[in-house]
């Protein structure tokens, strides 16, 4: 087994993300890989199928500059604040262009990642009952072969690329994250190629309460990106910038203001 290569953020993205890829930049309200997502935009990648349970500000930015052709998700909101205006503008008014949408429930998306990580074709669950989602998404009824119970099958999710952020990695690319773990481990194991950005490289990973370790030999590239999940946070290292989540509501409302902000703060910024 190979170990993960430690490279710069720009190199990690260059070597893994191609136009048209399905890309999961995961993080469930914690450890959201903003720096990596911004690097994808700076490198001009487009026609992406963006996958994420909770597309928040980062995906609002990626959709708003026109990098996405499709969005696969389960909840598209600015957590605790309200709407994602670029996400809404894309779906409601096809701006800057139309995007396809495939939506699920959280339980459905989580199980799709589990199936993907397990390299199984689908996962089985109790769910999607009493919801119109069934008519608009990819789920099927399935009968339990042992009890006859009617259950729901959801198709495996195997993105071309998974990108996640974590607190620490060692020099072999073994990664540890702690705090809210989301679906990052599942996303990395489900994907064809995996990139992990970290707050810092350490000599040795120390066991942490609730720590999730992802071994370097299932990761392709590890890149150091201190503060790489801001305005989200990395528990124990950075704080969630709640004010920015509120400010984004204002910045993103207007197309011109949004584009100006992206040009100044993301697209023309020097990559890490």
């Amino acid at each position: 087994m190979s170990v993960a290569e430690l490279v710069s953020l720009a190199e990690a993205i260059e070597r893994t993300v191609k136009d048209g890829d399905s890309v999961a930049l995961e993080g469930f309200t914690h450890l959201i890989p903003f720096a990596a997502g911004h690097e994808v935009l700076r490198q001009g990648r487009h026609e992406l199928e963006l996958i994420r349970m909770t597309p928040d500000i980062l995906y609002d930015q990626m959709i708003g500059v026109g990098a996405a052709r499709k969005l696969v998700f389960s909840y598209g909101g600015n957590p605790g604040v309200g709407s994602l205006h670029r996400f809404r503008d894309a779906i409601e008014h096809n701006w800057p262009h139309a995007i396809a949408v495939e939506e699920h429930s959280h339980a459905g998306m989580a199980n799709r990642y589990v199936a993907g990580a397990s390299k199984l074709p689908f996962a089985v669950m109790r769910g999607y009952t009493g919801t119109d989602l069934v008519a608009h998404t990819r789920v099927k009824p399935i009968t339990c072969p042992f009890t006859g119970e009617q259950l729901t099958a959801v198709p495996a999710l195997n993105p071309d690329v998974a990108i996640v952020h974590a607190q620490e990695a060692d020099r072999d690319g073994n990664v540890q994250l702690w705090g809210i773990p989301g679906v990052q481990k599942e996303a990395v194991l489900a994907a064809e190629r995996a990139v992990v950005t970290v707050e810092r490289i350490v000599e040795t990973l120390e066991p942490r309460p609730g720590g999730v370790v992802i071994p370097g030999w299932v990761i392709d590239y590890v890149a150091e990106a201190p503060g790489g999940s801001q305005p989200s946070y990395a528990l124990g290292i950075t704080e969630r910038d709640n004010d920015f989540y509120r400010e984004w509501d204002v910045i993103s409302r207007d197309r011109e203001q949004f584009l100006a902000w992206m040009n100044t703060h993301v697209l023309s910024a020097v990559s890490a």
Partner: protein
Amino acid sequence: MTGQDAPLAPTSGVGGTQSTSGAEAFTSGELQTIVAARSLSGKRSCFIGVGRPSTAALLARMLHNPRLVLVYESGTIGAKPYHVPLSIGDGELAETADLVVSVPEMFNYWIGPGRVQVAFLAAAQVDPRANLNSTVIGDYEHPGTRLPGAGGAPEIATGCDEVVVIVPHSRRTFVEKLDFRTTSGDRTTLVITDLGVLEPIDGELTLTTLHPGVTVEQVLQDTGWELGVLDKLGVSAAPSAEELEALRELVAR
């Protein structure tokens, strides 16, 4: 959702902000939060999102149910935040939780098998059978308003024993027919609004309790269908001084 709460007088229907007979004035939003907190009396565990539901659940822990287990979708079980969190992923939730689990574990081990007793849910639309819409207003393919979507709601509403819906009372919210059914209303036990409380009777939401100072006419006017009204209509108790003080102290933290 906040900011439009009408001031309510605690003892009469005049709706003024002045306190009367020694009781303090309060807003309709404060009362909604306090009534939601009361609904958690004696409950074991509650699944909550951010905003008013979160405030209500923290208030319940402060006032009468200190052992109430708070479960947030982000994976934090038994969270004991001091501040009302802005997002379900706030660090304080993870730091104070009894355990922090992955999203697949949250839904497959905890929500799905019914280990969480009560769920607080919100929505953009509620229909007469308490089904909820949080997906789109208008046509699904070409929506007038794209809402955030289902999130955890469909499986939370079929996994938890009791669903309590917390929404503002208006004709925009209470509609005869949903634009999209995101979530089943089958397990809904209470709908708590800023005007009163609705409960399913023979499967159909019925006005069972009015908040003080609110009239039946007001509720009917703000409901988009011919809402049934219970003969023996109850009236919510006005917030006690202790409840109001605790709520205001919590929000000010």
